[in-house]
């Protein structure tokens, strides 16, 4: 399994790591049982994501996709951020090994979870807009987090 140079760069020098104390929205996805959790903090001003930070527990790809996802949504409107797909994250990183594709899904979900939180805080039901945000994205394979479900 080999990572692209971009992935290694974002792993070695992750962009936007940390927390935002007075964040307008926070989203957390993943499950420690599966070995990856992403937490994303957003600062939103006038419908625009003015600042974004993340914290991730996970493999190299999980850290790199979180970092790239924050880059892709920074300065964007909420609507634009919702259009950032796992594919876009993957392409921006020059691809991921097949077993790591779920990390990019997790990154997409982290953005969505944070935006859902934002809608909720503003009295808007996020589900019709954002859809359901899962906490596990190992849909294509048996996953330890579903073993006790």
């Amino acid at each position, binding site marked *: *399994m080999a990572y692209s140079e971009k992935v*290694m760069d974002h*792993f*070695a020098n*992750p962009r936007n*790591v*940390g927390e935002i104390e007075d964040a307008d929205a926070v989203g*957390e996805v993943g499950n*420690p*049982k*599966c*070995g*990856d*959790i*992403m*937490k994303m903090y957003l600062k939103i001003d006038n419908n625009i994501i003015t600042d974004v930070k993340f*914290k*991730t*527990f*996970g*493999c*190299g*790809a*999980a*850290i790199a996709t979180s970092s790239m996802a924050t880059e892709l949504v920074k300065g964007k409107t909420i609507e634009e951020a919702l259009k950032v797909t796992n594919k876009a994250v993957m392409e921006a990183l020059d691809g991921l090994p097949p*077993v*790591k594709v779920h990390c990019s899904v997790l990154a997409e979900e982290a953005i969505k979870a944070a935006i859902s939180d934002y809608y909720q805080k503003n009295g808007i039901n996020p589900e019709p807009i954002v859809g359901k945000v899962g906490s596990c994205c*190992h849909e294509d*394979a*048996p*996953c*330890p987090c579903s073993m006790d479900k």
Partner: protein
Amino acid sequence: MERFVYADNSATTPIIKSVIDEMLPFLEVKFGNPSSLYSIGREAKRAVECARERVAACIGANPAEIFFTSGGSESDNWAIKEMAYYQMKKGKNHIITSNIEHHAVLHCVQTLAKRGFDVTYIKVNQNGIVDPIDVENAITDKTALVSIMYANNEIGTIQPVDDIGRICRARNVPFHTDAVQAVGHIKIDLSKQNIDMLSLSAHKFHGPKGVGALYVRKGIRINSFIDGGAQERGKRAGTENTAGIIAMAAAIEHACKDIESKSQKITDMRNRIISELLKIEKSRLNGDLDKRLPGNINMCFEGVEGESLILKLDMEGICASSGSACTSGSLDPSHVLLAIGLPHEIAHGSLRLSLSELNNQEDADYIIEKVPKVVSELRKMSPLWEKIKKGEKYYGV
């Protein structure tokens, strides 16, 4: 990168210079086929037979009990499958093994299970050790084979193979042990141990990859493995890997010379690293501290994930490995870490460092400096770490 430290000797080892010097002539000058009648063929044949004696002498075996193979996986496959099929003809269809075996053993046994064998997996205790009594209790008159590893490749635990061997001998059940991680690292004397078959692999003791041996005690009947020419007394056909076999003999001789004092030195270095790294908050040692391979260190650091730990250490010049799901290529962390009772959440954060005689105190110092640094960097970006530090439960129910 201030330094390069190779600390993954359980994965493989570099070949030492004296071993290369011994093997090179057999690639270039003395390249003859050992089955050929002319001089360079005869010379190759003599060297292969001499290598058989040298390997045998290092483990207390007779040369006639050593069969050369392509490595540990082949030796395991041969011993387990062919013994099972041989025994099946006598109506025996039960195999006993442990739940911490290498995949080379586990997958053989799983194949046999699909072909009608019953398998008992002996569970290790939380220190990663098999209880011989459990083996004794599992034996029935249908038992065809017991296969329990000599030392574990992940957590380094040394199994009570002498006791297990005694039990198997008393019950007349053949006993195989995968000693790939043990040979050349701890003293083995098969003339005093009740081991019927033993697998070893050269690249784990500073020999080349792709060559190993299966020891089969005199009097133990087993099917041949590869059909073809008459090599290896008709049991394992194929033109011998002459250079590899000679290198293995040179390497095992080197490894077994002063083995006790060398392993004590490595053990001391290992213990120093373990005690320093245990000072890291929320860390633990996996596997028994005493019944342990000299060079093995296996620890978990809560709140970090193994693959990113390995990548970060690589950036510092340290080669190590992990039993996390991401490094195992599946979604589950290593079966060995789960077998000793670790929850998935903690097993994901494992680190294995394995030392050899080529490591020195400066390497140990460097590891002691860099591991805490890297763990702390990863924890700083881990959303779990805040919870762990506050003592909040982040796993289980």
